């Protein structure tokens, strides 16, 4: 995983990470080293591939959250939204499969994306047009999306049609030249996001709005539009994550994506984005998501933590990772 740290090109100014931003990557490197010392199996190609692939959902969603948080917003609904989009996608694919066969898969992906964009737009307009605090607005939609997925599944499971199962499987389990597809997808999403956030006018406005809303408004930026668009980007990212998620277990349940929002926010903050807005770090977010998944993996691979204390140790490690991140900034 160390290669992820080196992945972003440092040549041009806007893309550069700089030593001040190296915190999350240092924390990640430290974690990998500790993991190797505890159990050499930790660095086996198989384990690394599994864990990084698993972190892809949180990473992709967290990249979207980087925009929302950098612009001074917050989205608590992402976990429920992921479950809702998964449910809509599966129901659509099952409905379309008898008439169009495996073409239902790309059509379903399009439906997922449209649903995600619509959910994001809903969150964005409630926050901006309705002038409701993002925390409360998305707490509301979190409940709505969760209830809708529970309703769609009758509280049970909605599984993808058997005829589509095998054809869709490679989207999670397949690889290109040995690199699992979800990792490629999250890298692609991160590249695009880094470009948008660091190199486009929208990205700069996004950060400006998060840093100081009033100053941004006086300099002629439409704050509402920038913020709404950040939520729409978030919706698109959740949809992409859902598209990769469906083939993993092939089903949506009312417990899909529960508490993902907290993992997402944690990943974003570990990555160096300021929770109060005004600072966004796309690659840091990706490192944050990988760190979280590595911690969980390490808990199982190591033998000295009682199963009852796993959550406590995870909490301590997250706080230490944050401290490493902070200190590296001085």
């Amino acid at each position, binding site marked *: 995983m160390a290669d992820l740290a080196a992945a972003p090109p440092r040549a041009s100014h806007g893309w550069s990470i700089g030593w001040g931003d190296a915190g999350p990557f240092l924390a990640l490197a430290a974690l990998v080293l500790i993991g190797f010392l505890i159990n050499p199996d930790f660095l086996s190609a198989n384990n690394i591939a599994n864990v990084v692939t698993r972190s892809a959902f949180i990473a992709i969603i967290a990249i979207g959250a980087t925009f929302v948080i950098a612009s001074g917003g917050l989205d608590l609904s992402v976990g429920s939204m992921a479950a809702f989009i998964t449910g809509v996608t599966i129901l659509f694919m099952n409905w379309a499969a008898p008439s169009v066969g495996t073409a239902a898969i790309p059509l379903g992906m399009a439906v997922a994306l449209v649903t995600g964009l619509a959910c994001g737009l809903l969150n964005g307009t409630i926050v901006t047009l309705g002038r409701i605090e993002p925390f409360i607005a998305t707490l509301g939609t979190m409940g709505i999306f969760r209830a809708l997925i529970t309703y769609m599944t*009758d*509280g*049970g499971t909605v599984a993808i049609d058997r005829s589509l199962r095998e054809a869709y499987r490679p989207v999670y389990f397949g690889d290109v030249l040995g690199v699992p597809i979800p990792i490629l997808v999250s890298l692609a999403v991160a590249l695009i996001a880094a470009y948008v956030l660091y190199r486009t006018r929208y990205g700069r406005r996004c950060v400006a709005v998060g840093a100081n809303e009033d100053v941004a408004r006086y300099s002629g930026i439409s704050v509402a539009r920038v913020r709404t668009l950040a939520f729409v980007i978030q919706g698109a990212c959740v949809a992409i994550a859902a598209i990769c998620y469906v083939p*993993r277990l092939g089903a949506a349940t*009312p417990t899909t994506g529960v508490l993902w929002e907290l993992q997402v926010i944690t990943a974003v903050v570990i990555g160096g984005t300021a929770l109060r807005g005004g600072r966004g770090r796309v690659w840091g977010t990706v490192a944050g998501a990988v760190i979280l998944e590595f911690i969980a993996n390490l808990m199982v*691979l190591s033998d000295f933590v009682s199963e009852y204390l796993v959550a406590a140790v995870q909490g301590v490690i997250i706080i230490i990772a944050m401290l490493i991140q902070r200190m590296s900034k001085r």
Partner: protein
Amino acid sequence: MLKNALIAAGVTTALLSAGPALAAEKKTIAVSIPAADHGWTAGVVYHANAAAKEINKAFPGIEVIVKTSPSASAQVSAIEDLSATRKLDALVILPHTSEELTTPVKAIKDKGSFITVVDRGLNDPKIQDLYVAGDNIAVGYNTAKFLVEKMGGKGNLVVLRGIPTVIDDERIKGFQDGIAGTQLKILDIQYANWNSDEAFKLMQDYLAKYPQIDAVWANDDDMLLGVLEAIKQSGRKEIKFALGGNGMKEIIEKVKAGDAVTPVETPYPPSMIKTAIYLTAAHFAGHAPVRGSLKLDAPLITKENADEYYFPDSPF
């Protein structure tokens, strides 16, 4: 489903002919259960509604009303509202928690209602007239005995447990008792919160950590789905058995199909709510004595008896 309907019809005719005299005054049976928020409770809601429909149709003298509640405090309000607005001849309740529901249910009992408690007992067992539950210890114990027998008493196991609760503890205890004294060894046991995703991740980690795993037990079928997917992805062939528990229809389908890795299942059936509602109805319509406790067995579900536990229309 057809088979069930036939059984129901049979019971109906028997009960109807037994107690026509009681049909004069309409009796109300209120059913209070948790709202469907995961597979098992979804099954409870499905079977409670099915029972209500069947009984309302079969016995004109009985009205069954079903109320679902998302939390313990909502359930307390729901039963208080029910008893305030009408006379409850019976209350069938699957409590969210024992502690919070004990006093409110006692208040209803004091008004003269017949109380049927399902699955989770109240703190004071004197409140209930009828208690219907499954056997969580047997879920673990019977699974363990099956593995001991099929694996010749030795091998390496990994176990996935659910959310820290009495239910989870009992299943694990039953399992540990079942393998005690054999050379079956539990390599690892961790919580996966009865969640498919977490079970998938945990199983991937188990597979990375242990080069030789002979069998896996996930103490719930939601988790088993994640486990099976992780095994499939790893391509590992040494795992002889991957077993679950509860009786989810997807897993029963595997048992019916004679799956080699998941050939058996242990039930902790959500349909026990139906048993409880029918027995309560029998108290009024059949004039049949039903006071007491009924502990449903958790026998191994095999290819032969799988139909008895298979509900294709249920969400679980």
